[in-house]
């Protein structure tokens, strides 16, 4: 096995794992159209195997850090290298594992797309950039891959670019991410100014520059360097802004629902499982840089995002949009967990969420796929993503149904699922954090509990509407045409369903402390077992069960409460809290006003000056024209006419008359005489 040769140099293995998808990207783009599936799948599988190998080599063992000199600016040397620790290898396995599954799924799902080779190429590019992001050891490299991830996301959202909404969504995502990238770049610049290095290990590692820097009377001191303390907060906010855009947190979240215009498999891989987790990953990677102020802001933004997204998801009708808001909500959970210091809980939830959200999307994709085929076959046109039009698919698509049920249970945090462990760990941490701090902070855990209850409502609303009751569009006799998706897609659902159970993460289904993954990140292993450890899951699950029953009673018989649709609460939720409208109003309008103002300024002042200048120039040119015409031309013309007059005068002598000639001749002779006589 050649892996043995790499034992001493695990960095090379990581590098190889990252480069393989890039190779696939280049190879597929340069080869002929229509193919690429086998290349993409084989490279990503190889990459996954290498990642697994690395995971086994590094997890809970010695971290690996190898770097080479990249370039030198002035006296400062930049390094590029690979940093492999628990977080890196976990993310590597997560990214490549889910990628492999999505690749398998996509082979069937995207089978008939004419631009399929482009799809595989973009997936390769995405995997490359995501893996690069995960293993990079320098902020600069991370930033580079961060941009690449955003770019490949842009390409994949706009994959069906001939569709107007898709290209618009791609642009929106790109621009929103650009705002975040600006924050990220600002953070990098502050850090570089402060420490003259961008190396992750020396900055954020054990005894790194950040942890050894101290504060002294409002000054942030590290070695001989010192700058006002506020800069640390600003750097924290800047990095957080980058993470906010990537992880779709509250003010910058609107791109993610629109990103659902891409293929469902892409939504599953990028906009549910991996890329949106990059923001959380970034926060985790540079965690020491955040000071308490930034962490508090992070808590509230995360909590608010989670709550807001959950309320919006309540009333959405597009199956993918519901899942997108659910993703935003869960990302809010993770960010909030990071904010309260529940680092390992957050990563734990990131991992479990990746699996169950991927499963949700793929199951939804399966439903969409089958309904789309039904539409094509029966030339029956309806919006096959609208859950109001679906129904009764439970019998026809049992695997999708059960897969979705398991994933939903995990999402809500019902017992025996992975979500129970991770989500409850976050809630418990939130309760403990609130208990440690008095006052208003007690609202936070209850807000999270409420959000979780809402989660239960909206996800089961989706399930009941799609899989129970009757479809409005599909006649019962034609229902027989619909069945579970072809083999490969179903197997993927089954595998993912397995990963949504507690078994994978912990032998004990009741407490998250037993989870190997949680332990992998827990620095201080001993934690006080408080009352919340059994109280929080209890409250959560009781409420969740109650809500599921209520949901069942409402949606299964199809008794949708029409009255509710008239309330303003419903409207806020359905219109997604009017964020698009607010942005439209506040930003676009104000920009329009500003541009009107600048237009006016341009018109009146600039154009005025320009016009004055033009008039001045015109006057000058009129004068110079006059001068030219009268003086210069006058001189020229007078010279001309003078010579003409002279010519005409002399022409008179050439009259053709002999007597004139003679006269002239005699005059000359006379003149000669007179001259010689006088002189």
């Amino acid at each position, binding site marked *: 096995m050649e892996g043995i040769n790499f034992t001493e140099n695990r960095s090379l293995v990581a590098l190889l794992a990252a480069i393989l998808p890039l190779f696939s990207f280049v190879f597929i783009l340069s080869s002929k159209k229509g193919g690429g599936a086998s290349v993409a799948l084989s490279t990503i599988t190889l990459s996954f195997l290498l990642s697994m190998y690395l995971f086994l080599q590094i997890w809970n063992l010695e971290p690996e850090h190898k770097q080479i000199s990249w370039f030198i600016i002035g006296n400062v040397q930049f390094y590029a290298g690979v940093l492999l620790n628990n977080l890196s290898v976990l993310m590597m396995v997560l990214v490549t594992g889910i990628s492999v599954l999505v690749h398998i799924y996509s082979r069937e799902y995207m089978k008939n797309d004419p631009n399929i080779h482009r799809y595989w190429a973009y997936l390769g590019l995405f995997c490359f950039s995501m893996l690069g992001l995960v293993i990079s050891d320098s902020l600069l490299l991370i930033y580079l891959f961060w941009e690449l991830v955003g770019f490949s996301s842009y390409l994949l959202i706009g994959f069906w670019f001939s569709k107007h909404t898709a290209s618009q969504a791609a642009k929106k995502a790109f621009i929103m991410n650009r705002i975040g990238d600006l924050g990220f770049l600002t953070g990098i610049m502050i850090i570089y100014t402060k420490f003259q290095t961008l190396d992750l290990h020396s900055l954020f590692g054990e005894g790194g520059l950040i942890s050894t820097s101290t504060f002294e009377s409002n000054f942030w001191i590290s070695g001989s360097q010192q700058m006002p303390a506020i800069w640390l907060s600003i750097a924290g906010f800047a990095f957080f802004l980058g993470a906010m855009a990537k992880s779709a947190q509250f003010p910058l979240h609107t791109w993610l629902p629109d990103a659902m215009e891409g293929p469902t498999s892409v939504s599953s891989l990028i906009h549910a499982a991996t890329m949106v987790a990059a923001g959380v990953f970034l926060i985790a990677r540079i965690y020491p840089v955040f000071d308490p102020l930034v962490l508090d802001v992070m808590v509230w933004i995360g909590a608010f995002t989670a709550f807001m997204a959950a309320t919006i998801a309540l009333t959405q009708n597009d199956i993918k949009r519901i899942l997108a808001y659910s993703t935003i909500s869960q990302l809010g959970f993770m960010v909030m967990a990071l904010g309260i210091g529940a680092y390992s809980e957050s990563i734990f939830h990131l991992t479990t969420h990746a699996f169950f959200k991927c499963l949700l999307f793929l199951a939804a994709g399966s439903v969409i796929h089958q309904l789309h085929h039904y539409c094509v076959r029966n030339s029956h046109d309806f919006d096959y993503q609208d859950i109001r039009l679906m129904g009764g698919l439970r019998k026809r698509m049992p695997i999708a149904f059960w897969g979705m049920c398991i994933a939903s249970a995990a999402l809500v945090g019902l017992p025996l699922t992975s979500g129970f462990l991770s989500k409850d760990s976050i809630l418990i941490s939130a309760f403990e954090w609130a208990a440690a701090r008095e006052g208003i902070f007690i609202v936070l855990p209850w807000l999270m509990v409420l959000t979780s209850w809402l989660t239960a409502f909206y996800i089961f609303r989706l399930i009941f509407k799609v899989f129970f009751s009757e479809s409005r569009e599909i006649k019962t006799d034609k229902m027989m045409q619909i069945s579970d998706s072809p083999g490969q897609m179903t197997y993927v659902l089954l595998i993912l369903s397995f990963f949504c159970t507690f078994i994978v993460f912990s032998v004990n289904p009741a407490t998250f402390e037993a989870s190997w993954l949680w332990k992998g990140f827990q620095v201080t292993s001993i934690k006080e077992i408080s009352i919340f450890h059994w109280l929080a899951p209890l409250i959560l699950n009781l409420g969740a069960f109650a809500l599921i029953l209520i949901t069942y009673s409402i949606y299964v018989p199809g008794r949708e409460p029409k009255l509710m649709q008239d309330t303003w609460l419903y409207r806020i939720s359905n219109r997604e809290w009017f964020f698009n409208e607010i942005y439209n109003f506040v930003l676009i309008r104000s920009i329009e006003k500003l541009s009107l103002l600048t237009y006016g300024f341009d018109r009146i002042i600039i154009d005025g000056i320009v016009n004055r200048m033009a008039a001045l120039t015109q006057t000058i040119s009129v004068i110079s024209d006059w001068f030219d015409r009268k003086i210069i031309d006058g001189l020229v013309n007078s010279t001309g006419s003078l010579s003409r007059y002279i010519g005409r005068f002399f022409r008179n002598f050439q009259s053709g008359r002999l*007597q004139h000639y003679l*006269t002239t001749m*005699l*005059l000359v002779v*006379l003149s000669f*005489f007179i001259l010689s*006589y006088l002189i």
Partner: protein
Amino acid sequence: MGEEQIIFYFFAASVLISALCVVVMKNLVRSIFLFFVSLFSLAALYLFALADFIALAQVVIYAGGVLVLMLFAFMLSNRELLNSLKPAGSGFKVNHFAGILISLLFLFILVTVIVKTDLNQLDWMQESVPIHVNDNSTHQIGIHTMTAYLLPFEILSVFLMMVLIGAAHLARKGGRA
């Protein structure tokens, strides 16, 4: 003043006045006859220069040749020519003043030069032998013609023949002019 001077100045005045009349006169026939008067007077002046043969030749050639030629030229040519020879227009034209001016200026220059020159003191005149009144100048001319001036004489005779032929050719009636 002796009678020689009186006769000389009479003829001199005759020459100048008749010449002036010839030039100024509008009637062509009259001016041609006055032209004879002045030519004869001029021949008289040649006699005072002791050139009797020249005076004779002047009378013969001009009176017998030129005058007759002129008169015959008019008379032999058609009526229109004679009509057109009638005076056209009246009096002096503007360009007459230019002619008068130029002529007077020339006269002034010539007179100035003649007056300024001391003609009697010329070198070649001191050494030369003047013609005596009693000399037979015709004899002398005959000798000179056949000796020193034989070549010009012969050339002149050929030339005269050419002129005769040329004039006859030019004056040919209905010829291609």
